[in-house]
């Protein structure tokens, strides 16, 4: 994809989407699943008729373990809330007209919020969920990023240089 508008590698997302009269219809909390597989399919699917997560009553690392089956495999997962101050979004392209394969549409129109969610259920194949799961650990980045990007105050610099002096 070659972005014609804006710099290369930059995507525009329009967050001012009108959720309409029924905001609940577009809140997908509790319906977002992260599976340990790739399904080579993109489109609507009767998920709730086939994918039936059940609570197991087991608790690991403070996570309530859920159980479900997909393609004969047993999945064990947990629903986790997104960290405070963060939301999950389902993005899509603004549909300008009906033509699906319009390149022009793909390139020029910004991404748009189609739905949002504030929790996500991630699933492991054949292992109990834990705080050590990669998916859980990705959230560490948020804390690190915050520390990295926090403006440095004069006091911070002073205490940092004092600490350095003490070391040497």
């Amino acid at each position: 994809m070659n972005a014609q508008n804006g710099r290369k590698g930059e995507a525009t997302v329009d967050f001012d989407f009108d959720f309409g009269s029924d905001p609940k219809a577009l809140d997908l909390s509790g319906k977002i699943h992260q599976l340990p597989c790739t399904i080579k399919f993109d489109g609507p699917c009767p998920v709730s008729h086939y994918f039936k997560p059940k609570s197991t009553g087991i608790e690991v690392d403070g996570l309530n373990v859920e159980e479900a089956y997909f393609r004969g495999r047993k999945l064990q997962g947990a629903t986790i809330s997104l960290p405070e101050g963060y939301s999950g979004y389902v993005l899509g392209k603004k549909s300008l007209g009906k033509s699906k394969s319009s390149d022009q549409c793909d390139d020029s129109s910004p991404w748009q919020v189609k739905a949002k969610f504030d929790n996500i259920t991630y699933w492991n194949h054949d292992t109990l969920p834990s705080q050590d799961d990669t998916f859980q650990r990705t959230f560490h980045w948020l804390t690190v990023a915050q520390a990295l990007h926090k403006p440095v105050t004069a006091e911070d610099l002073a205490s940092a240089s004092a600490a350095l002096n003490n070391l040497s």
Partner: protein
Amino acid sequence: MSLQDSLPKWASKPCVMGIDEAGRGPVLGPMVYGCLYCASSYLKELSSLNFADSKTLKEEKREELFEDLKANESIGWAVDVIDPRELSSKMLNKVKINLNEISHGSAMGLVTKVLSMGVLLTEVYVDTVGDPEKYRIKLSEKFPNIKFVVAKKADSLYPVVSGASIVAKVTRDRALREWALEETAENMHRNFGSGYPGDPTTKCWLEDHKHSVFGFPTLVRFSWGTCTSYFKDVVEVSWESDKVDEDGATGGSGKKQLRLSNVGITTSKRKSEEIESNAKGRCKFFQARKLEQLSRF
């Protein structure tokens, strides 16, 4: 596992038990292990009850015999119903458990259960499809105080095993008949047939309940080779755990089961980065968390 409630007096005398299975071959529904036990002194009478290998009996006759043996106070019985979800998932686990291991586990579970009820088991007759001697040694090691007789076609050789086969078969048939389908999709029906892959009714049911994304309802044993033929035009699914599996396999270990990992997959192997992000080339912090930078999507 359902068992009788109270322990009869004869159970503290030396007892004989038979174990048999029903529903090993079918592509759908549960597999059932059943056992039947009685005092050794009752064996002669048991032989006169006309239990025969359940497969040679008509369904009505089997049901009748099952009701008879339930009412018979000189006989005890128990069953273990193994859910098709359990069969599929164990056989498709990261560390795969094959059907024989599942079967042995179930049979040993029945022995343990009956022993823990206080029944004095001295002799146990077991039907098997696999190697009888290996299985006998495995059982004897686990239960050194019991004499095991393991034989192919034991269900037609020993009345106590014939009785167990009736318990298992009737339970399997009822379980399938009353199976509560988990899925709530429209137009589902219950004409399962026998569940055997060759049964035209079963074939029809499989065809009617195939789903491009989900494969089949969970009543079906996904780990059965039969499923592959139905999965030819189904959406491809690649598992992260299979990727690990393939890497491990290059190291040697030739003991790979049927390529279950590729059930329904006909195209070539995919590269790992298509399955999951790997943060190649980024610092360790990101690699450990599989955090890839994505600026275009």
